[in-house]
């Protein structure tokens, strides 16, 4: 998913339909619009109240061709509708040349397009996940509508989860695997105290999520599988047994969108498909990751844009495999851009709850992607990683 950059500061939003479509009953339009808003209020604390008149947050209009905002509609087909991001007012306009329909494979389904446009009104840009509601293309009438995981993560990144939800409250899976959204140790003290090596010295080498959704910490020649707030039974294990051919003392690691896990050490990197080396490795970092330095401190994939961030000393690099060159000339940039983070970190991870975590020595920092700063919380960050992540006394 992608966030445009603005969002509403209040969660109780109001809307009105100031111009109805020619070919639908007003009551039908009212119902479909309300349903479309509920797609987003189901997973957040946002509420939407219809008003007949007066100032509102989101104004909805069905109009044709040029209609006053300089972005004319184009008749049947092509552009179906557009909406403004919160910073530009949040209004949603629908091309009334289209044949808007309700619960019918004919014409264009109003509910689905409205739900998409209201995503823009709330601050979401287009997603490159084909199955997402926020993908730019109309996919035709879907009798059984389900919000994609990508959409839920997007809206919750902006407005947080619904506070009345039980468990992770995330059950929509269409296309994307349902992520394990658990509340990370900051809210739940450890259950099984540990007192082996990682508790004596919680400094780690690297941290990553596997393609199956497990989280692993690497330390020396050993690795630990992490549970919700501790280390799984039977760990640590030897890295050489976990990933045959992989040495210890790893600098950095991440699993990319292609499901492959990449390990970095010194000037070299290894690629694994699950637990099997995926080809002829190691290779030189300079070969496979042009523009990225050797002897890295940490690396992670950031869900917000799917790009890879590498950290070394006081600098970071952003790597986009789909671009040429993959690293823009504006990099490296100072880590101080990430407000509150120290230099020379040990590990970095975007966890499945959407927060990004940075580790240095025996401490960790929880980073808030919305404020783009270390989270303000009680107790404050940094916190001891042994207690919160590795179940140490």
């Amino acid at each position: 998913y992608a966030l445009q950059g603005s969002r509403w500061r209040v969660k109780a939003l109001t809307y009105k339909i100031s111009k109805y479509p020619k070919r639908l009953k007003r009551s039908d339009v009212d119902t479909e619009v309300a349903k479309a808003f509920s797609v987003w209020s189901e997973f957040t604390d946002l509420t939407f109240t219809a008003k007949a008149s007066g100032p509102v947050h989101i104004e909805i209009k069905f109009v044709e061709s040029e209609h006053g905002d300089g972005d004319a509609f184009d008749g049947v087909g092509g552009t179906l509708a557009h909406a403004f991001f919160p910073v530009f007012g949040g209004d949603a306009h629908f091309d009334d040349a289209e044949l808007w329909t309700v619960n019918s494979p004919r014409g264009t389904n109003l509910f689905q397009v409205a739900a998409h446009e209201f995503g823009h009104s709330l601050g979401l840009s287009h997603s490159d996940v084909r199955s997402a509601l926020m993908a730019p293309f109309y996919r035709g009438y879907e009798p059984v509508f389900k919000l994609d995981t990508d959409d839920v993560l997007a809206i919750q990144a902006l407005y947080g989860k619904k506070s009345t939800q039980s468990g992770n409250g995330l059950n929509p899976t269409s296309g994307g695997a349902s992520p394990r959204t658990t509340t990370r140790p900051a809210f739940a003290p450890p259950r099984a105290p540990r007192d082996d090596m990682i508790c004596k010295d919680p400094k780690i080498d690297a941290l990553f999520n596997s393609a199956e959704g497990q989280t692993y910490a690497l330390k020396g020649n050993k690795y630990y599988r992490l549970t919700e707030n501790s280390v799984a039974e039977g760990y640590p294990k030897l890295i050489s047994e976990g990933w045959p051919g992989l040495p210890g003392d790893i600098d950095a690691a991440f699993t990319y969108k292609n499901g492959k896990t990449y390990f970095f050490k010194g000037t070299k990197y290894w690629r694994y498909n699950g637990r099997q080396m995926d080809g002829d490795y190691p290779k030189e970092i300079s070969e496979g990751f042009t523009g990225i330095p050797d002897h890295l401190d940490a690396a992670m994939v950031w869900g917000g844009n799917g790009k890879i961030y590498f950290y070394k000393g006081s600098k970071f690099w952003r790597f986009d495999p789909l671009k040429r060159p993959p690293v823009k000339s504006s990099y490296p940039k100072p880590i101080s851009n990430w407000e509150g983070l120290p230099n020379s970190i040990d590990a970095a991870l975007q966890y499945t709850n959407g927060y990004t975590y940075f580790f240095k020595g025996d401490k960790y920092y929880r980073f808030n992607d919305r404020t783009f700063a270390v989270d303000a919380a009680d107790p404050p960050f940094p916190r001891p990683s042994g207690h919160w992540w590795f179940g140490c006394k």
Partner: protein
Amino acid sequence: APVSTTTQAEIYLSQFGYLPASARNPANGGLLDASTWIKAVQDFQSFAGLNVTGELDDETMQLMSKPRCGVRDKVGYGTDSRSKR
């Protein structure tokens, strides 16, 4: 109307943010340089999950013809200056 010509594709790519409005350089007769064009096509193909060829192939033009939302895919080219009023 379905996208079937380079000109229509250029309009599409600039409408949805893949080609900056200033892509055509008046200094050289308003020509669009090849690398800018290829990158724009690649960006669209990548975003839409197509094979990234940089070429205006059938698959790409068919997707450009599909009904869609009017909001730009790439908001990067300058801020979206459309204001509410």
